[in-house]
């Protein structure tokens, strides 16, 4: 048995691995076991965690992110002592309370009073402590009138409030929270967020497993990214959030995915290439939300042309057109081309798109309405926009949200700014 690390820590994980043996066929009955006593079951090994090491300092708010199946929950269960790691050590300082799920041990046939006591004892309080905090818990949940109601008669919102109230009052030094905050209505979510903020200010150590990158950026001091059981990133929440988004939407694509894309037009001009560029003018497959970027295409005339229309259409991954423009639409002339002349068309804008994958369809058309195509290449190139700003809709417009007190007398007090 090794010694704990020297410097102060709240959680220290040292080389932890966890492998699950998945039997090919389950010997489920004693009968089978007795009839085939020497039959060996064969196992598939699934490495959920591979040699993961990290430390969390006291008072730190630490995010754990990763895609489904990356090992986050296994890690949390190892920390909570529900799974024993196969290798490595886990050290803790102070009392730990796991919240793998809200309301562990809740029983719908019992009253709120009984359930609060059960839940608090399950989470590590003594019965005396649980009774002492009972009033606070009920007050926090704002359920004073309903304490003697059986839980089955509670609405799901009341249920969640009660469970969350217990969690808050358990008063642990180290909290392990697994996506439990993704439930409830907007008001409850806000309360959860406020409470997390408070707990953070009180100097508690919190490990939060989540898919919500805005929460990671908002709360976490540091974060780590897991992928297939490996710790792939550990550091600033923003960087980890960006890494997570890249991983989620994939890095493949870009110009390479153009092969086989649909192509229309008579070929009087050809679009040779199209690509995205980041603010520094480098070809990019990933763009960060809110940064300037550009889309460019390289066009070659196959025969003499007079003022062809060049344009772009940008679509999201559900094939919705997010934005389209063309030279003729903005009143720009492209001039005269001789056969073999080339031109680069550039569209510049700020990446206001919602995080996700976007493709560009460049086209060259005859002058006029713009629907007689010389060449149109469907989804020639694509880019992934990463970001953490959570707003609704297809684009994140630069915006400002202002609340002005209107006073009580008349609504017309709201005057135009």
């Amino acid at each position, binding site marked *: 048995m090794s010694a704990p690390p020297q410097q102060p820590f709240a959680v220290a994980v040292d080389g932890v691995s966890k492998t699950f043996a998945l039997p090919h066929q389950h010997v489920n009955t004693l009968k089978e076991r007795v009839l085939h006593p020497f039959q060996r079951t064969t196992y598939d090994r699934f490495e959920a965690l591979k040699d993961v090491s990290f430390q969390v300092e006291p008072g730190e708010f630490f995010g754990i992110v990763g895609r489904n199946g990356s090992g986050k929950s296994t890690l949390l269960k190892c920390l*909570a002592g529900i799974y024993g790691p196969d290798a490595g050590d886990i050290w803790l300082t102070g*009392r730990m309370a796991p919240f793998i799920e809200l309301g562990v041990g809740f029983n719908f046939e019992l009253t709120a009073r009984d359930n609060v006591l059960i839940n608090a004892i399950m989470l590590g309080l003594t019965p005396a402590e649980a009774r002492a905090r009972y009033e606070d818990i009920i007050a926090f949940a704002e359920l004073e009138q309903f304490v003697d109601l059986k839980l089955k008669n509670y609405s799901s919102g009341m249920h969640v409030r009660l469970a969350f109230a217990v969690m808050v009052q358990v008063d642990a030094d180290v909290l392990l929270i697994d996506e439990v905050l993704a439930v409830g209505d907007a008001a409850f979510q806000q309360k959860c967020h406020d409470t997390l903020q408070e707990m953070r200010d009180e100097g508690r150590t919190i490990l939060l497993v989540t898919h919500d990158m805005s929460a990671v950026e908002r709360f976490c001091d540091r974060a780590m990214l897991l992928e297939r059981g490996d710790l792939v990133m550990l550091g600033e929440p923003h960087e980890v959030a960006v890494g997570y988004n890249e991983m989620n939407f994939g890095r493949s694509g870009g110009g390479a995915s153009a092969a086989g894309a649909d192509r229309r037009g008579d070929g009087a001009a050809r679009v040779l290439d199209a690509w995205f560029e980041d603010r520094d003018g480098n070809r990019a497959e990933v763009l960060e939300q809110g940064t300037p970027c550009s889309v460019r295409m390289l066009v070659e005339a196959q025969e003499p042309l007079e003022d062809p229309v060049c344009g772009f259409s940008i679509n999201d991954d559900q094939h919705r057109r997010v934005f389209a423009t063309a030279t003729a639409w903005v009143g720009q002339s492209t001039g005269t081309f001789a056969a073999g002349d080339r031109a680069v068309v550039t569209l510049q804008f700020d990446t206001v798109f919602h995080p996700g994958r976007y493709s560009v369809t460049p086209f060259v058309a005859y002058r006029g309405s713009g629907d007689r195509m010389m060449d149109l290449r469907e989804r020639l190139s694509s880019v992934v926009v990463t970001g953490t700003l959570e707003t609704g809709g297809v684009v994140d417009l630069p915006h400002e949200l202002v609340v002005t007190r209107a006073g009580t007398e008349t609504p017309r007090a709201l005057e135009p700014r």
Partner: protein
Amino acid sequence: MSAASGSAPVPYKVTGPSALSGDWRRFTHLSVMLAVTDFKLRFFGSVLGYLWSLMRPLLMFGVLYAVFSVVFRFGGAVNSYPVVLLMAIVVYEYFGEATANAVQSVIDRENLVRKIHFPRMAIPLSITLTAAFNLGLNLVVVLFFMVVSGIEPRLSWLGVFPLVALLIAFATGIAMLLSALFVQYRDVSPIWDVVLRALFYATPIIYVIEQIEDRNETLAHIAMCNPLAVIIEQLRHMMIDPTAPSAAEAIGGAPMLLIPLGILVGSCALGFTVFNRRAPMIAERL
């Protein structure tokens, strides 16, 4: 509300799940809490509440008494047969309830096992505790019938305490074994049902041990190797009928009692070992 409590906390190592981990007080609190919850759920839900659980052994007693005493004239030769029968039924019912409920107990509490770290042993123990509340109340009913049927109180009545303790220990041992095995082998449940039924007839409940002894002494000795038989016969001897053979007499000498005692201790040890070995894996195997 400060998270830090007094002195600086000392780092400790997180161990995986186990049958009995660390703090004994927490283990006790959990076991009792789970048992009390179970008890509340079972009895406070119905209108007649607790009465039902008292009715169960009494009803069973009524049926068996009618069949074997009135129809078969079976218990005529036994002193205070009704009380002997009732006492034996109460003991057997406890054992049956505790072990049969324990079989699926770990699976039934899957939600807890997969979500929280606690000594796993609290689960089967809470089952035998719940059944023990019942046993205690049923024994009060037995006591009432003893007094009504005119049995004189004696000092040897105190023997009920060590005997009940042995009974609970035996049931807990079996409960641990069954609950751990059931996680992996799902046919433990029907198998145990059959075993319990066989045990009902193999144990001197509707008959007394002398009735076997009269026909075949060796068979009686073998029947007395069953710890339940020892407990029931000894209770009968100490509580109801001093003229009835004690367990030592029924098995053919006090040294022979080492066999049922060995079985009792052995099943506790086996149950604990199996449960302890499987406890760390329960959450993964569910």
